[in-house]
């Protein structure tokens, strides 16, 4: 860090994130009060079947005011390893155990005001849970439906505006072989 942090005031401490106002001096000498959402980080998983289809989840997103089709994703629990979190979220949200999890990189969705870092994974070797696997439990406020889509269908959904989650658009480009999702053209 190259800035000097003279004062940090916590204005909100919630279940998922904290909001702080930090009085700082930037590298260019400008002083300001920065409002920052401090977030524990998250994982998003591209579950890919042997046939090359992707599992998405549909849920109601209150903040966005709509139902969305998204990749399975979730916040890290306290002290949780990102790989363990990816395995857990995959099982909780799509009901499948991922035999292989391959990291695709970690990215910040909103670096302007939030430090959330999203770790992306491709999940393959998907199988039904069996005895010996950890029990998966959905969060109480999650009411999740799953769907299986081909890369072609995903591109058409993005072009039509049926996928409105940015993480899903960005992660698919890293996880899927072949041409990336396109927009501005009729779905083929």
């Amino acid at each position: 860090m190259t800035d000097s942090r003279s004062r940090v005031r916590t204005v909100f401490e919630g279940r998922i994130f904290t909001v702080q106002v930090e009085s700082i001096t930037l590298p260019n000498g400008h002083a300001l009060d920065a409002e920052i959402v401090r977030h524990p980080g998250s994982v998003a998983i591209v579950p890919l079947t042997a046939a090359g289809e992707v599992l998405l989840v549909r849920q109601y997103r209150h903040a966005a005011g709509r139902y969305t089709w998204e990749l399975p994703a979730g916040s890290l629990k306290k002290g949780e390893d990102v790989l363990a979190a990816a395995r857990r979220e995959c099982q909780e949200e799509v009901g499948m155990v991922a035999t292989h999890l391959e990291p695709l990189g970690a990215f910040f969705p909103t670096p302007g005001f939030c430090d959330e870092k999203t770790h992306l994974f491709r999940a393959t070797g998907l199988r039904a849970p069996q005895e010996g696997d950890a029990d998966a439990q959905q969060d109480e406020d999650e009411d999740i439906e799953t769907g299986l889509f081909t890369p072609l269908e995903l591109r058409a959904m993005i072009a039509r505006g049926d996928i409105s989650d940015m993480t899903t658009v960005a992660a698919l480009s890293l996880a899927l072989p072949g041409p990336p999702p396109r927009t501005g053209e009729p779905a083929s």
Partner: protein
Amino acid sequence: MIEPRRIRKLFEGPSFTLQIESTTLPNGRVIDAEVVRHPGSVVIVPITPNGEVILVRQYRHTLGRYTWELPAGTLKPAEDVRDAAVRECHEEVGLVADHIEHVGSFFPAPGYSDEQMHFFVATRLRAPTSADPVAERDEDEDIEPRPFKRADIAAMVGRGDIVDLKTLGGLTLTQTKNVP
């Protein structure tokens, strides 16, 4: 959109408002949702005549580091998204886009924020003239623009030198738009 039964405003700053919204979900459950209400933003993919994409380098205090990102910025009150895209391109890149095309709108954090990012391709870039509105940078922005080949950007993503998700999203959405 389900209207909350009760809203408690906990924090109101220049960038966003934080609220607890008591809401009954479609499945009947009642939740107290922690929601960041944000005015929305624009993300621009400026493409030069030879197909390069212009990124900007800036210091991100939230991350404690410098980043290379697509130019972007928050909507001003009641501002048209297309006007905002032209304005941000001018302010951050220093060029006026004579052609601007909407390529999609997406939520970067739908789990807790209503921010919607509106993505635009900007082409026919030219130096500003006295007929253009004056571009003013925010005081806290110290921004360096530079054109990159798409292959070089892909390598930067692979190396972990690009860590901004909307940059990856914007490049994905405009992969086929190399020709202005």
